[in-house]
């Protein structure tokens, strides 16, 4: 998307700077005069919200790292030091711990928005895949971050998850040893997890930069899923989206800050306030809520290797989505059958989350297996079939025409 108008600075310094390095021109073109479809709804703000949460996590994380000690004998105590002695340390830690959850909430909504409106379809396949890379990096970062307080769930979560890699034939055990830095989850594990937990957010930021770059080439998709036909379909990012996104950020803050101040441990597990003990296994080892659907898929399959493969496939299949769903119409709003299956997918993922939080036995196991089966059926069978047979409702001529008809 080319800027809607050229950058014409009046300030002498900016002119001089921009001649040598067109930083201001780039910012103007992508934040001010960046043309966006006129009809974006509130769901389109979640990308900005995700960027905001990444910023919150990086800033609070950097300050927390100034007070935290990555050593098995001191990590737990240093977190308590943050909670009790560091000025507003409790606030920093609760914002950071709940911030991870809110980052995932926002990103999951962002992903489902893309799934419904077909934002993964040409010409945005690469944009979609870069987003999935961010998701994978987020999962790795969040997992390692949860290990740092060195509570019981930290330790046993790390043990269970790192052990999954031992299912890989031939090199599995060597990989696990490498992850651990020894023969059990111990101090070297904590040290490398801390190092990587500090590194990966900056990798996320870099991929997010590519993600935004890839977005700005074709420009945003929109709720109608039809291409922009000209300037009459568009509006500049500033001031419309700046104002809209700022409002959405403040609304997110109301909810986020409410949880931080009134229920900061609601999303956590009480066992993580017990210091890690390699000799005592907690009765139920459960990952953080944002991993539960994947955990349910893992446990729905009785074979370890196949379970691990299924779990990773749950994300891999999303990389193939642009080709699995080859229906010409992007937006789910014009695909009546797709729409119903989409609702089913949302329910399915929520069910998987509930199953993941419960022990894999009795009816939970059966529900988990059915839900896992549907998850893959949806992407591998339902969408390819619908691509061929579903007749979409007629699309409007243009965005501006649809907007005019509505107002």
């Amino acid at each position, binding site marked *: 998307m080319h800027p809607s108008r050229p950058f014409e600075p009046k300030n002498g310094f900016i002119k001089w700077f921009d001649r040598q390095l067109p930083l201001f021109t780039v910012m103007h073109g992508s934040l001010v005069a960046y043309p966006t479809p006129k009809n974006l709804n509130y769901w389109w703000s979640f990308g900005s919200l995700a960027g905001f949460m990444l910023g919150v996590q990086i800033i609070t994380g950097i300050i927390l790292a100034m007070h935290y000690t990555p050593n098995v004998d001191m990590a737990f105590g240093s977190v308590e030091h943050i909670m009790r002695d560091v000025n507003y340390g409790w606030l920093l830690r609760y914002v950071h711990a709940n911030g991870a959850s809110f980052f995932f909430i926002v990103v999951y909504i962002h992903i489902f928005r893309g799934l419904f409106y077909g934002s993964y379809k040409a010409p945005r396949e690469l944009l979609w895949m870069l987003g999935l890379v961010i998701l994978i990096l987020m999962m790795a970062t969040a997992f390692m971050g949860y290990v740092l307080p060195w509570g019981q769930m930290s330790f046993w979560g790390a*043990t269970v998850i790192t052990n999954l890699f031992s299912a890989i034939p031939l090199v599995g055990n060597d990989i696990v040893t490498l992850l651990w830095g020894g023969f059990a989850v111990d101090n070297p594990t904590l040290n490398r997890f801390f190092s990587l937990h500090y590194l990966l957010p900056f990798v996320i930021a870099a991929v997010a930069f590519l993600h935004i770059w890839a977005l700005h080439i074709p420009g945003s998709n929109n709720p109608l899923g039809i291409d922009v036909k000209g300037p009459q379909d568009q509006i500049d990012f500033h*001031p419309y989206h700046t104002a809209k996104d700022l*409002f959405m950020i403040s609304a997110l803050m109301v909810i986020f800050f409410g949880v931080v101040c009134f229920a900061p441990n609601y999303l956590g597990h009480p066992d993580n306030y017990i210091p890690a003990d390699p*000799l005592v296994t907690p009765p139920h080892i459960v990952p953080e809520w944002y991993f539960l659907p994947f955990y349910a898929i893992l446990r729905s399959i009785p074979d370890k290797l196949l379970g691990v493969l299924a779990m990773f496939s749950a994300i891999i299949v999303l990389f193939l989505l642009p080709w699995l769903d080859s229906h010409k119409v992007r937006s789910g709003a014009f695909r009546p059958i797709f729409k119903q299956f989409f609702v089913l997918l949302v329910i399915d993922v929520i069910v998987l989350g509930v199953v993941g939080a419960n*022990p894999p036995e009795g009816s939970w196991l059966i529900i988990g297996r059915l839900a896992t089966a549907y998850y893959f059926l949806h992407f591998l069978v339902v969408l390819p079939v619908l691509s061929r047979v579903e007749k979409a409702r007629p699309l409007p001529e243009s965005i501006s025409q649809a907007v005019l008809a509505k107002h």
Partner: protein
Amino acid sequence: MKNKKIVAGLALVAGLSLPALALASTDAEEPMQPPGGWPQDGIIGAHFDRQAAQRGFQVYKEVCHNCHSLKYVAFRNLEDLGFNEAEVKAIAAGFMVQGEPDSDTGEVKDRPGKPFDHIPSPFPNPEAAAASNNGAVPPDLSLMAKAREGGPSHIYSVLQGYKTPTAEELKELPGGKVPEGSYYNPYKAGHVIAMPPPLSDGLVQYGDGQPQPTVQQMAYDVSTFLAWAAEPKLEQRKRMGFFYEILLLIVCGLLFASYKRISKRVLGH
């Protein structure tokens, strides 16, 4: 070192196989709330009952501290509960803590505690703690009110939950009996607890004008104290939350109005 690895390896195998194990019918019972609930719960005006917390500290000091440490709490923190500086000094001086090495001889002697000291552990090391307690280290209580489902209500319930099991209840236990040296307590996961019933009516002498030291009263008091010990910034957090939530709602409203205005101007709706 080798032993440690083997043990860790075994624990690991146990950990991996555990999710496959069946759920016991001896899950902890839903904990009781004190009549009227906890004053530190809720959104507006949440506060610790300071009188109860002070009495609770007395219960901790005279009863729990015989076995349980409270290592993340320093004496100076007790000022939060309404003890004044002189009282905190006196409380600290009542505990012996490990001193600093003597600058001439290097000898380490115990000395009376000072406000900056943390509450000393009743045992010199975990091995000594285990040796005096049937091989199990009594857990540190600093975070007990956050480390169990139910929080302070869990502590409150366990302290009052000791009872003689009925034949039905015994049947649910592995082996059909309470193991030697353990006690029946339905509020504990597994319904068996190694700690002997710690409280009995009148065990602690409360000062003048204070309530009768019944088991229920002492359980309430010490649970309040431990709730504070686990989350000492709770009052500040909730006060701040209330203030900033109002502020954020106003900011949110203003930003919405400004968005709508801009939308009207640039989009026409």
